[in-house]
């Protein structure tokens, strides 16, 4: 009976690691794309006015004001980002993608074998937590307009990875006691 519960815990943990891992992979990849696309010296930074043609507005179902604010939105990102922020985010997102891929591999390992892979899953969750905290610390030090966009999702990720880490550690302790 204990073995069945332990096996159920492994399946449950693997699916949770996989689900949040895939969401995080998408989130880090999108952040990488954001930083690649919106850079200093680009057209919004040079003060060009928004080009809002009537046919485009109809196609996108946008008002003229919304179209103009889209350019302001990019300006907010650029003016709220300190000089170091873009390269920091590019590095952190790349590390995040690598750590997430590692955690996805550990989810596969959890199902296919057991005990050493549990330690790897603990390491990968700890890595993800460290990356979240590094992102949070950076977000605290950027301008308020951009900070407001980042802090809450990062806090949510910290909580998710903390839950995963504690669950894996506790499950590891229980497995050690049972064997």
């Amino acid at each position, binding site marked *: 009976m204990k073995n069945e519960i332990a096996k159920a815990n492994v399946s449950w943990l693997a699916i949770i690691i996989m689900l949040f891992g895939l969401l995080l992979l998408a989130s880090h990849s999108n952040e990488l794309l954001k930083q*690649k696309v919106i850079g200093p010296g680009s057209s919004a930074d040079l003060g*060009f006015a928004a080009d809002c043609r009537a046919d485009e*507005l109809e196609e996108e179902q946008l008002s003229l004001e919304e*179209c103009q604010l889209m350019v302001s939105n990019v300006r907010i990102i650029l003016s709220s980002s300190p000089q170091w922020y873009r390269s920091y985010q590019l590095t952190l997102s790349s590390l995040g993608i690598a750590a997430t891929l590692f955690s996805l591999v550990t989810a596969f390992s959890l199902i296919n074998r057991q005990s050493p892979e549990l330690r790897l899953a603990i390491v990968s969750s700890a890595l993800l937590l460290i990356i979240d905290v590094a992102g949070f610390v950076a977000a605290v030090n950027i301008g308020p307009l951009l900070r407001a966009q980042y802090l809450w999702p990062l806090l949510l990720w910290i909580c998710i990875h903390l839950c995963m880490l504690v669950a894996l550690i506790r499950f590891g302790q229980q497995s050690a006691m049972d064997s």
Partner: protein
Amino acid sequence: MSETKNPVEPESENLPRLVVLLHWLLAASVFFLFISSWWMLSLPLPSAEFTYRELPFQLHKNIGITVFIVVITMAAMRVRALLREASSPQGWLQRLAVVDHLLLYTLLTVCCLSGYMSSSYSGWSTTLWWLVDIPSMTAENDDLNILFSDVHLWSCWALLGLLLLHIGAAIYHGIGNDGAIDKMFRLR
């Protein structure tokens, strides 16, 4: 140790390794497509000065075309087995699982095709992974672009709803420990 029979007893044989790998590749791609598309539509409209949308849209189309190829491959490998399951006597949860899978394949195909048609009618060219030019099927047409854009939008919302059902079912199987989740992780 007492053996308790689970009410939802999925087939026990392993899935082909290719199907397992394609399933996870598809999941990662679909999540990225959703998250990146919500962001990229907030970027300034394209013009000679504003080219912010160029890379995200090209990437979106590249991944979308790749997803289409993956879905067709998976459907070709799985549909016969799913239809066989559907015709055998089984509980309502298993029937729901078969319908969920068939609907997922259908909606993924509709999302990809409507996205391609919308792009085709918009007049923007597509170069698959910056290597192969994908010809536009038609000349630029704003009305049809808007129509297919709407089909793309609503089929993607429906897909998201169905994905949530799919994820819920995965968690249900994970907690129930009935072997269904293990099949999706076995590469041997």
